[in-house]
């Protein structure tokens, strides 16, 4: 399997993540979509690192995973706070930005 296959996989995962972010109504599902997109980037990094023999890609991936964890924790905290204030976690109802 060549680099192409990994990149294709990453693209598919990214697209699924984006689709989830755009279409899901539950905020937690949206966060899951964001995680998927981040992980597709991780796949890219690992794949390039593996095929170019440069380990710095791997190191970057470890950083990214750490940041993803932090981001997930923050995101979930925001969702819980939102639920407390607005009594809902559905993205459609959170339209205070409306002009």
């Amino acid at each position, binding site marked *: 399997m060549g680099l192409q296959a990994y990149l294709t996989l990453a693209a598919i995962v990214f697209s699924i993540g*984006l689709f989830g*972010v*755009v*279409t899901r109504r539950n905020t937690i599902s*949206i966060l899951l979509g964001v995680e998927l997109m981040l992980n597709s980037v991780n796949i890219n990094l690992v794949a390039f690192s593996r095929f170019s023999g440069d380990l710095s890609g791997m190191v970057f991936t470890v950083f990214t995973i750490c940041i993803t964890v932090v981001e997930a924790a923050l995101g979930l905290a925001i969702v819980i706070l939102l639920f407390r204030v607005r009594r809902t976690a559905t*993205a*459609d109802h*959170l*339209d*205070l*930005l*409306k*002009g």
Partner: protein
Amino acid sequence: MMTGDGTFALAALLLHALGFLTLAIVAPLRRLGRPAAFFSIACALGSLAAAVTAWQRHMGGAVSRLVWQWLPSQGQTLATVGVLADSDSTVMLSLVALVACLVQIYSLAYLSDEPAPSFGRYFTYQSLFAFSMMGLVLAPNLAQLFICWELVGVSSYLLIGFWYKKPEAARAAVKAFWITKAGDVGLLIGIVLLWRLTGTFDLTEMRVLVESGALPVAGLSIITFCLYLGAAGKSAQFPMHIWLPDAMEGPTPVSALIHAATMVTAGVYLLLRTEWLFALTPDVLLIVAWIGALTALMAAILACVQDDIKRVLAYSTVSQLGYMMTAIGAGFASAGFFHLLTHGLFKALLFLGAGAVIHAVHSNDLPHMGGLARKMPQTAIVFLIGTLSLAGIPLFGGFLSKEEILGAVWAGGLPGPFIILMIVAFLTAFYMFRVVFLAFFGHPPAHDHGHGSHTHPHDPPAAMALPLWVLALLSMAVGVYFTFTHPEPEFESPGWLTPAAVSAALAGIGLAWLTYERKIINAASLAAAFGPIRYAAIHRFWIDDVFEGIYNAVLLGFSKVVGWLDRYIVDGVLNVVSSWTLSSGDDLRTIQTGRVQDYVYGVAVGLLILLLWARWALA
């Protein structure tokens, strides 16, 4: 040419300015009423003394100029202000000062029922008028003349509309202002064109230029015609005479001052001042003469059918102005000016006499009068003196001046206008004696109220009687003086002229006597004999209707078109643009859903487009 002293003329002018400014600025004094009137009259008396002194100093042909620079432009002076005193202007100045002064004294009693503030307001306007008229008379250049000309128009407007709560008075004031304004446009154009031609506004410089023959005659006719338009508006010449009868809505002393003796003669005076210019354009002079004669005839016919005593006098004024204009058109401006002066005296007398009658009877209508000679003998005598002067009977004021005009028109080679003027002389005597017989002789009208009538006509109080007698005696004095000392005429008048003119006047008096006093000729059948003319005259020859039609069709039509353009084209474009902006904003607003996901979607799509663009367009 001797040089005189213009200070007295200037003093006469400035005294009225002082009166006006004091009353205008010191409002408490004005609101007191009578003290304001006394202050104004004191100024008028001082002004009269100064004017007469100025006249005496300039009678022998001396000329004096007191001129200050004004409106500097590129190192030169564009216009000046000051006084130009010569024999013509100072005699006119004396007439204005005299009539203004007498009218103010008369108004003290005539308007004594007015509340104090409006009494003061009246005298403020009077002073403003006298100041502007004197400024016009003494103007050394056309720029100052035009300014004073307009000031005179404004004060005439204010005085006609003095009883501004009366709708007819307000309407008449606006009408007078607009009609004269229409003529003034011509005057302004004429002055500016003349300035372009000669490079100066100054009358003396212009005259030197004209007399040296340096002025191109081509195109001058348009200029003089424009000047004549202004004069025709002010002097109520056909067809712009229609404002003068309506102007009678003002207080009677105002009519005496403005619409008989002074302001309406401003047009004649302007033509006299620019006589040397008009002499270069004989074609325009011919127009002046014919329009003057037609005006005289038409106004005389109109005067015969009026029942309002002031309107008879108003049409008579129009008619006499036509006389003066005809003389000027015949090329003898001095004859017209002479009639202007005598007419100023006796017409002011007639108006003030009519005012005394109105004051006593509380009505303007001739049918409400009758038999007044017994109840108010003084008024009857002075009115009769004025009437005989106007009719041109020897020994009375208007005799010689009327003769001079007729002689001038004959000598000017204008047989048509001459015949018209002879007819007018007859008509003048007829309509004036009609007034005399209807108002002062015959029987008083039967009162419907029985004994309850509270009108007991009596002679006016001293403040009103004094001006009447002064004017009556002056008219007599002028008449007697000139009947026996004929001035050196500029032209040969035929020997049959005097008998012809006097017999025309006597015939008019006789007809009026037979009709309205002896009642041998039935007034109704006399009217029926002139059926169509009478019918036309009652409708004022439809001239007012023509003006109204023109106003409705042209001005209102144009206004409607402009209004439509403004409403639908100018406003329409703006409204469409603004509503389009609003609705597109409204539409665009809906893409702001407020949902985070839509924004993410937008970012993703935008990024995709950018990537594709980078891939295909930039590669």
